[in-house]
């Protein structure tokens, strides 16, 4: 990994952006940004998304099992009542 200052990045962006290595950008001697290849960025983001999606699916499966006893009709009734209440309260707040 190359370490460069933010001033270096401003002055020599073209040269720095052509480096093969990952780059750590410092400002006032502190790391503030990393520069990596676009393909690597996409790969990391995709891994992160896969991880989050798996976690999401795992957690939601548990929640769905815990609430499976409620019928769709019942859920509809409850959410519609809640929406009605929340919106009426908001309208009331707007009017006063």
């Amino acid at each position: 990994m190359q370490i460069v200052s933010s001033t270096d990045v401003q002055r020599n962006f073209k040269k720095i952006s052509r480096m093969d290595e990952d780059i750590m950008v410092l400002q006032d001697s502190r790391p503030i940004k990393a520069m990596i290849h676009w393909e690597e960025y996409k790969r990391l983001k995709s891994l992160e998304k896969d991880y989050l999606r798996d976690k999401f699916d795992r957690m939601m499966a548990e929640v769905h099992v815990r609430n499976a006893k409620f019928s769709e009709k019942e859920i509809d009734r409850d959410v519609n009542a809640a929406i009605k209440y929340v919106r009426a309260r908001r309208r009331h707040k707007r009017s006063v």
Partner: protein
Amino acid sequence: MYGLVVDTNVLFRALVNEKGGDYKAYRFVFNNEFRFYYHESRVKEFLEILQYKRISKKYTFSEEVLDVFMSPIRKYGESLEPEVVKICRDIDDNEVLGLATAATRKSGKVFLITHDEDLLDLNGKIETVEILRPGEFLRDQVPTPLRLRLR
């Protein structure tokens, strides 16, 4: 890339129930095939609904679950200011619709997924916004290979 706007009632059903297509429709927030649009007012309404007594006492979901459920919206969705539309009787329905019409500026065509009959009645009135129930969206708009992957 087509846009996707999910109404509050779909979000709640997706949170507590995997039947009816709501969960699968919401899960598109992770996919690259559609761009997910939201506005903070909708998120706020959803969180207020969860605090409604009958909901909070009856249904089981922890704060952690809620974080995990909501995080993809902010992480992968795009926040947009709704346009002012005055088509529906309900101000809040107008806001959802306004979000969808604002999203058409970015995505061209937008699917608004809802169970709200007033909104569903408006399907076909705005050329670039298709208003559908989750099941209809999954059946008619999601390409078969993608639909098979969702099972």
